[in-house]
């Protein structure tokens, strides 16, 4: 899914956290938004992912605004996925039930779990598996409806290096299969895996690198 952002500006009170950002992201790419704390990367990700309305500016998905796509719940369910820093798996549900929570097509769950290497953990609860396995289940939950793009906020923030690399490799793999990933991270290692790297500083994009 192609994402276009036009002149995005956002204020928290009097503080300008995003300053006139314009960008265009082609579909099926692994995009990394990097920068120091307070650079505006999370705000940009939140606005791009429909979770936050900008003070001014507009976001287009395949040249249409969210309002033009119709109901926002339907849009989120069908077109985008989310992965957060914490897995936010529901503790009283098994990994499979967590993935099935928003699934439109239950038959997609098993192949996806297999692709992510967690097929043997389907009946386990989140407190019975490792941190890496939890995050893989959270990624499966985001991918289950085959969205056009997955937004991830610091998805490796709670993982060790080995698991962080595993997550990046998964993103890269699914991106080559056509799902776009937009990931906000302060981990510089992500640059080795991403197709597009957006560097931010003081609410502005200072550099965009494409591989």
């Amino acid at each position, binding site marked *: 899914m192609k994402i276009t952002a036009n002149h995005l500006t956002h204020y928290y009170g009097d503080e300008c956290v995003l300053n006139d950002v314009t960008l265009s992201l082609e579909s099926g790419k692994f995009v990394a938004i990097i920068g120091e*704390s307070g650079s505006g*990367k*999370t705000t940009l*990700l*939140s606005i791009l992912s429909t*979770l*936050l309305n900008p003070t001014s500016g507009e976001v287009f998905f395949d040249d249409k605004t969210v309002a033009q796509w119709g109901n926002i*719940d*339907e*849009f*989120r*369910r*069908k077109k985008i996925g*989310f992965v*957060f*820093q*914490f897995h*936010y798996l*529901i*503790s*009283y*549900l098994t990994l499979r*039930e967590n993935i099935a*929570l*928003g699934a439109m097509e239950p038959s997609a769950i098993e192949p996806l779990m297999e692709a992510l290497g967690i097929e043997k953990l389907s009946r386990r609860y989140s407190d019975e598996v490792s941190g890496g396995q939890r995050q893989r289940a959270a990624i499966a*939950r985001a991918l289950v409806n085959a969205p056009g793009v997955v937004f991830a*906020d*610091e998805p490796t*923030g709670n993982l060790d290096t080995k698991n962080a690399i595993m997550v990046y490799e998964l993103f890269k793999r699914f991106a080559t299969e056509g799902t776009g990933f937009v990931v*906000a*991270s*302060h981990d510089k290692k992500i640059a080795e895996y991403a197709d597009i790297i957006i560097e931010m500083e003081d609410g502005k994009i200072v550099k965009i690198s494409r591989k």
Partner: protein
Amino acid sequence: MIIALKALRKNRFKTALIFMSMTVSISMIFLISAISGGVVSMYSSMLKTDGDIIVTQKGIADTFFSDINRSMSDVVATFTGVKESSALILGASPVDKLPIVAIYGVSDNRYDSYTLSSGVYPRSGEVILGSKIYESLKSPKSIVVSKKTFAVSGVFKSRIGFEDGGVVMGLDDAGELFHKSASIFLISLDDLGQSSAVVAKINALDGDIEAKTTDSFIDSYNQFKIIKTSSDVIGAMAFLMGILGIVSMMSMVVNERKSEFGIMRSLGLSSWSIIGKLVVETLVVALLAFAVALGVSLGVLEIIEHVDKFQGYINGEISFALVLNVFIVSLLMAVVGTLLPALYASRIDPMTLIVRGGA
């Protein structure tokens, strides 16, 4: 449903509190409705026994205060269409160790409505006792009613608690005790179709008396209205207490599960779907609470019925209609109580997950 059960199990402490709050409220509604309904039903049944028409003193608020001339019962008995007219005195007095007991003074022609299990019908200076009070007083040979001693000539069994826990004596003896001629006449008819004509004829007989069909008397009887209104008010309070209990507990549950609902919103689950999930959870608790409350209420009523202190006067009835009504009320309580916290849950912004994640 499985997800709802898992969520309830996960939050078992708060689930238990919601369950207890609902069980107490539903039991209160059951008990107050059953007991008040039982009182009304017992008194109505008593009046309806061989009574198509009831005659009282005009404008009197309670049959206990009514005083009418018993000789008019004989006049009424001669009216066309009247099968039988009997006079009764309704009173209450201490009997032996019991502080208050229902006393019935009845004309001779009414004795056959009491089925004796032992002994004979009373003559002057004698009484027959309901089986409940007979047991309660340990099978006495005589009893003292308002400082006057009466021999016990027999025992009767009645399904009406007020009668089974009461004392029946002749009209003359009761008249002396309560200083009145008669409280009411109960008139049975050959043909119910004649009731309006007979009522009109009795009312024309004397300006101080008032005749009504028993059904219309029961509908307009002030005491029943007071009992029913009180029961409705207490029932409504129990309903509101139940709702408040659910609202406060569910609000805490929603607050604790904020990230869960945030994730659901980010996955594109609609507000109605989230509200539905929470309502199903509470409905499951409501069904369980309803079943337990029904059991508890039946148990409490059974115990009350056998407590000597109540002399069988408190005799609750849980009819199918009451069960159905309370079932609907229980579901309504669950839905109304969950709605506000569920609305809040359905509006949780998934952005909170990012803020909490804090990049």
